[in-house]
Structure formats: C-alpha cells, structure tokens
C-alpha cells in the first residue's frame, strides 16, 4: 500500500538528488535541470501534505487546497527561472564557447 510517507521520502530523495546534481555535475545545462528537479520535489511534498494532511483542519479559508495553489505558483516561477537561466547560459556560452562549469574560472579568490 502506497501511503503519504512513500511520497514524502520520494520527494526528499528527489530533492537530495537535485542538490547533489547542482554541486557535482559539470555541465551547466544539467545544473539547471537539477534545480528544476529540486523544485519539483518540493511540489510533490506540497501535494502530499495537501492530500494527506497531518493536522485535522487547515487554518485558512482555502483549506488544504492552498497546497495545490502553491504548486501552481511554483511551476509558473520555475518556468520564469528556467527562461532566465537558459539566457544566462547562452550568454556564458557566447563569451567562452563552453558550458563546462569547471572552466568558469575568470573570477577567483
């Protein structure tokens, strides 16, 4: 039987995978994808808590639907973020013909 905990752990695992991807992957595009993965893990968590609430009644008027609205906002913002992120990656690529994160070393300590 699949219960809320399964979804929560899946969400946590996806979030961790995304975080590890941001830190370890060397391709700028895959770094962007990892960030998307993190945001979608958050969406899954929101929806799980909305579908299987821990508290008896939601304090707001919208009830547990507010979790669903949160997800819509996150999806919209993630799309805007991807647009800006890709534009920046293109700007980087044009200035140095590479999207390898290891080569982004003009600015150093």
């Amino acid at each position: 039987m699949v219960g809320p905990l399964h979804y929560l752990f899946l969400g946590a695992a996806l979030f961790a995978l995304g975080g590890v991807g941001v830190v370890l992957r060397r391709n700028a595009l895959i770094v962007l994808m990892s960030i998307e993965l993190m945001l979608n893990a958050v969406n899954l968590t929101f929806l799980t808590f909305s579908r299987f609430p821990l508290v008896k009644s939601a304090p707001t008027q919208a009830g547990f639907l507010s979790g669903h609205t949160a997800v819509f906002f996150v999806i919209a913002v993630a799309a805007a973020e991807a647009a800006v992120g890709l534009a920046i990656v293109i700007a980087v690529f044009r200035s140095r013909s590479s999207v390898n994160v290891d080569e982004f070393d003009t600015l150093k300590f």
Partner: protein
Amino acid sequence: MNFNPSDLQGVLPALILAIGALVLLTSEVFLRASSALASGSGPQGHSERPAGADRRYQAWLAAVFAALGLWAAVAQMGDPAAPLFSGAAVTDGFARVIAAVVCGALVLSCFVSFGYLEALRATRGEYYALALFSASGMCLLGQATDLIVIFISLEVMSLAVYCLSAYLRRGQRPAEAAFKYFVLGSFAAAIFLYGAALAYGATGSTRLADVANAVRLAASGGSPAGTTTLLFAAAALLASGFAFKVAAVPFHMWVPDVYDGAPAPVTGFMAAAVKVAAFATLVRILVGGFGEPSVALGPHGWQKLVVWLSALTMLLGNLLAVPQRSVKRMLAYSSIAHAGYLLVAVAAMAGAQPRADALEGLLFYLAAYGATVIGAFGVVALIERKDALAGAGDDLSSWAGLSERHPGLAAAMTLFMVSLAGIPPTAGFMAKVTVFRAAIAADLVPLAVLGVLTSVAGLYYYLRVVVYVYMVPQTKAEPVAGGHLIAAGIALAGCAALVLWMGIQPDTFARLAQSATTSFAR
C-alpha cells in the same frame, strides 16, 4: 479568497515601481533610432551596442518613479498596521521603512548607473525596468507574511537582479558572475521552498501567523505527533535559504565572485537593496513566524544558530577582506562582514525584551550601510568604467594618486571608507553603536565584544584604500572617467550627505526606525 481593491493601497510603493517598469518598457516601442545604419553595423571594440535612440530620459524617469515610491512609503509612515489580501501580506511600519530604504537606494543607483551606462554606450531599455521590477519585489518582500508570497516576491527580486548582473553580457566576467549568482540563488530558493513545504505540512497553511500559532502550540506540548520535528526542520531550511541571500558565512561563497563580476552600479544596488530585503524577510520569518521567545531562546531555538552564524560571518568576512587587492572584492568581503553585524541584531531579537531596540538597530544599520555602500560602489564605478568590459578586474594601483586628479572623489571615498569602518561622525559608527547596544541588552556580550574587535581589524583594509588615494603617488597616467560626472556627482553628494546626516543627527532617522518597532511587539 476575497479580493478587496482598497488593499492595493497598502502595496502602493511596489505598485508604483512595477508601473514605472512597465512604462519604461512600453516607452521603448516609441523610440526611433537616430540612424538606421547605426543599428545595422555590428558593435566594434568594447561598446555594447551603438547608441541608436537617445535613451537618457530613462534614468530620470526611473529615478522619478523610485522617488514616487519613496514618497508613498514615507507618506504612509504614520498609518496603523493592517493585514492585506486576507493575511497574505501586511502594511506596517516595518514594511514602510524597508520600502523607503529600497526606493531611496534605487534613486541613488539610478544616478550612479546613468553616467556608467552612458560612458559605456550601453544604455538599453531593460536596465532601469529590471531595476524597478527588482525593487518592487523587494518592497513586497518587506510586506509578505505568507511563505508562498515571500517565494514569489523573492523570485521577482532575484530574477531581475540575475539579469542586471549579466547586463554587460558580452564580457566574460559579468556572464560568469550572473551564472554563479543564478545557480546559487535558485539553489537557495529551492531550499527555502522545501522549508515552506515542511511548514505547510506541520500547520496546514503557509501563512506566517498560522506557523506562529503552531509554534506556540508546540511550545506548550499540545501539537499532533511529528509536527514539532517538522517545524524545526522547516525553520532550519527557511533560515538557511535566506542565509544564502544575506551572505552569512557558510553560505557566502557566491558573494565575492558576483560582486566582483557584476557592473559596479549593479553591485552597489545589490549590496544595499537586496541585503535590506533579505534581512527584512529573515526577520519576518524568524521573529514573525518562529518568534515565540520560549522557543527562540530554548536549547534548540534559533538564537544559538544565529549567534554562531553571526560570529563566523564577522570573523571570516573581515579576515578574508584583508588580502584583497581589488577594491570591489574587498567591498564584497566587507559586505559579508556587515551581514555578520546585522545578524548580531537578528540574534538579539530572540528575546521579547530587547526586540524593539534590536529591530531599530537593524533598520538603522541597513539604511546606513545602504547609503554608504552605494556611494562606495559609485566611486568604484567611475574608476572601473574603462576596464568594465575588457575583462580586467580593478586593482588598488588604479586608485593611487586619486586625490590629485579628483579631490572630490577622493574625499567622498574616504568618507565612505570611514563609515564602513565605523568611525565617528559617520552613519556607520552610529549604526554599530545601536546594534551592539541592543546585543548587550540581550545578554549577548561576547558577540558584541567580537563585533567591536573585528571592526577594529576592518580598519586595516578600509584605511588602506585611503592611503592609496592620498599617499601613494600615481604610477601610470590614467585619465579617470571623463564626461557625465554630473549625475554621479549628485548621487555621491546625496550618499555623502546621508552618511554624515545619519552620523551627526541619528535621532531623525532613529525615530523613523522606532515607528517600525511596533510591528513585532507582543
């Protein structure tokens, strides 16, 4: 959810700034290129793009809208606090002071940017529109009391600032800085959002007021099983998301690169305004959401965490600034160090008693630091102009002998350095005094002592700039930034006047800050 149109008046500053951005974007449509040839031929050398139409009006228009936003924030200053949009946002003294500081920073930044962009022939339509959009996000961040609204305002602010830091996109350095900023900023936003999801799970709502109720319930031991743990995890994730934004020490790695690579006027705006908005939200979340004193001061409370963050930030920020040769990078580390002093004020807010004093100190410090740092980066912008696109960083040697070439600039830079170091009679001194006084009132004496000691260490690298400006003879003949000095002059004079005014007559601004302290009183 019922929508009340009169609520829009409560978000007036943000509304004015957003409308201003739209007006600027729309005005682009009606511009006619002065010569068709100019836009056809590719750019030569370092100029971003041949200046087709005359876009100089945009800086003034943006400054006017920012000033209108400032006026709206100040005009509402005495009004009673009221919730907006059924509790998703609030208009109170705290939010108004934040909006006023952000709009003031934007006015000054517009003047600084004007000369910089004109000299690089890089004035394009989106620059001031992006600045206005980000400022409207910052004003909303000061008002938001719902985790999702905070996330959206945060992204409105951040996405615009990412674009601004990539503004001179042909150069390697700005693009790289923007990429680093974007990745770490989005990473931080995702961490914040995961915290919001956990808080939602523990409370069934994303409103900070409901989170505060749940925290109070958890403190009395009456909450459902598991939710207390979720709340602690949520607090940690929400706080670390914003620790990235305020550049507290384990989360500070992006700051030097981004501040160094972004165009200097943008860096000044980021250092002043983004910091204001990020600290405003941190206070809203920690004090407004998790501020129950018995929880905040408890063995697992956030005060301990913030104390450690602030101690580390003050130490490392000041120590790492010492070896920097680039003034921009030095100012970046100094911005980290100042985040540490501001965190002292946040730590002092954990208890109910010193909360009002600490809040006043925090707001005063934010305003003082904002005025000083915009001025400092304004001078850097004048020095940097030539090298901005070529890919070379600035070096202390290009500051040598500045006092002979431009005595006014030299005096202004000295004033800003003295204020950053915290020497009277400047704003920086009064700001440090108010913050450390609040820390002592909150029984955080070791933290206050560490703050004083590290600011003494800071004297070395701030005054080194002054030594170069006045005492080191000029080695190579560098004509500094001709033309368009008027706008920059206005901005620098404004910053200098603010720095001196807040240093000599702190009461005037302290009274404004006091009007904000009722927001979190219980």
